[in-house]
């Protein structure tokens, strides 16, 4: 039982990071029909941007700020203007393939210009332990979980309680009608890309101290986020959140109680079951597009 609590906390902490990435993944799909197969590499890159700033002599806090700003510029604005806009007019599939190429390009570029070896990355959550129900629980796990949940709550509030959020929802549901009623659709789509860039930068900040900064670290994250978005429901923020948390917990439990070798297979089996019996995902709605 005590072991189960450890596994749940660790699984939820990792799952919360998956959720951030999955939410961004889902937002891009909903507003611009972009299936971003480079989403994992989008999580990998901000850590290296921050490390580059630190290597230039900046303190960690400044590296975080500059890293997030550079992410917004490169992974938000640059991604939309230089890749998505020119490719989307040729259809969803060419764009999806282009993002696969982008993923390879990003990995190779980081390997070339930084290193093929892993690098250490500082944690924003201090090391230490707290006692919960008589069990020693890592402060880092709790900190990661709390921060990720706070961001998700903030994002949900933005989407559901603000005018901008409603305009984004209108853009996702029917861009033509949204345009007629005066919603600045293009600006809303750009905002979605910027939100995704912010989410991946945050996920990078939280996960890299654990996974280490490495050019290939996005592979696992991209796959986990993709599965989480589909399992949770590809058309709902809450679905992507639930999917992320579920995949994090399932991954940890399967590693502990099934086997390490098959841990990667269990989320995929879950994905297949969901596609067969509930194609809209656990919390998704059939044929509805909303953020």
């Amino acid at each position: 039982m005590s072991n189960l609590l450890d596994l749940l906390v660790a699984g939820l902490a990792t799952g919360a990071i998956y959720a951030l990435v999955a939410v961004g993944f889902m937002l891009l799909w909903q507003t611009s029909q972009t299936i971003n197969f480079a989403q994992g590499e989008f999580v990998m890159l901000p850590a290296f941007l921050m490390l580059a700033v630190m290597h230039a002599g900046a303190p960690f806090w400044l590296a975080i700020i500059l890293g997030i700003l550079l992410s917004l510029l490169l992974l938000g604005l640059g991604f939309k203007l230089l890749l998505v806009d020119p490719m989307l007019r040729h259809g969803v599939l060419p764009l999806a393939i282009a993002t696969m190429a982008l993923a390879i390009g990003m990995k190779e570029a980081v390997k070339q210009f930084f290193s093929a070896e892993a690098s250490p990355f500082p944690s924003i959550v201090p090391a230490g332990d707290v006692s919960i129900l008589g069990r020693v629980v890592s402060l880092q796990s709790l900190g990661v979980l709390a921060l990720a949940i706070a961001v998700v709550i903030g994002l949900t509030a933005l989407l559901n309680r603000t005018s901008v959020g409603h305009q984004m929802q209108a853009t996702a549901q029917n861009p033509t009608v949204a345009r007629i009623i005066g919603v600045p659709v293009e600006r809303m789509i750009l905002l979605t890309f910027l939100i995704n860039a912010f989410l991946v930068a945050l996920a990078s900040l939280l996960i890299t101290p654990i996974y280490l900064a490495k050019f290939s670290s996005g592979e696992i994250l991209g796959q986990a986020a993709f599965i989480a978005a589909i399992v949770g429901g590809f058309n709902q923020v809450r679905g992507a959140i639930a999917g992320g948390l579920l995949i994090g917990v399932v991954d940890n439990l399967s590693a502990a109680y099934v086997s390490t070798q098959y841990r990667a297979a269990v989320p995929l089996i879950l994905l297949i079951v969901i596609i067969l019996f509930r194609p809209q995902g656990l919390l998704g709605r059939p044929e509805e597009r909303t953020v």
Partner: protein
Amino acid sequence: MRSGFFAGFLLATVSAAAAFAQGAPIKLANVAELSGGGATVGNNWKNGIDLAIEEINAKGGLLGRKLEVTHADSQSNPGVARAQVQKALDSEPYVLLGPGYSGSVKVTAPLAAEAGIAQIMGGEAAELTQGGNKFLFRTSFGQQSSMPKVAKYINDELKAKSVAIVWVNNDFGKGGRDVITKEFAKYNIKVAADISTEAGQADFAADVSKIKAAAPDAVFVYVNEEESARMLKELKRQAITVPLMGETTLVGQKVVELAGDAANGARGHVGLTTDAPVDLIKAFREKFVKKYNYVPDHNGLKGYLAIYMIKATTEKMGKVDAKAFADNLHGLTIKAASEPGILMDVTFDEKGDIDRQGFLVEIVDGKQVVKQVLPKLN
């Protein structure tokens, strides 16, 4: 008159060819893990090789000929390693260097043996030199040499009665796990948890939870460098306080750099360390840091030693003869007094295994501290 002219021409051509061959560079081929999970291993190994070659060439080369090496990336993938080794052998190198991963060595060793080319590699799996391959040579201890020392230390010094074993599910990890399990049985040490992990694994939370549940007296960690660092961080995160013991891959320089404070207290047996209390190794470390601006791990030493193994053997033969190289290295003892590049006295047996002094180290304040020097056996 005419036939005399042709005879003279032929003689001149043959002489020129012989002179060209005499001065032509000696070609070496290196296939290593320059990217992928073993990038730390491969890049240290490569840099050690380049440093040694630079030194030897600066002093006039080997038997008057320059050394030249080509580097190929196995991407830490045995399949790619095999293809790269085949390609390297097609260029007929004097000696093949690498790979560092045991799994890659296992699939490439038959190719080098078939070509009759000696292969000096970094793999440590026990089985590599047990199959009768006469062309394969280690640069460090095999698991059959190192694991008994680790088990003895856990029994005698740590007084552990139960140990959790964490190993990576590849040839290196399985080999180490099998040998250490047998050694533990000799001391009646119980294996409290037997945890296999995957190469390149990023998340060790579940594995550490299993260790926590098993409550062992000590943990033996036998995974590759990057995974060791992630494991150490997770062990600290989950407040595991029992002694952590391992081999070179747990207490290497790169692990310490990646794991930070979490590496403190980890102990291990290392065949090679740049923190060894040996003057020649200290000098090597200085030269390496000056050239590459970082402290190498044991793989940097291995690469460096591989080149000096070639130098010592070739000088003993007095000629560059790829086919005779392996025969001459078997049974050879190279003294550091006569060949300083070999750093410590070393003997190669008939299987290609080595006998050399080793060290038991502990990480204290982010640095390897040598606790015991284990002497050369013969």
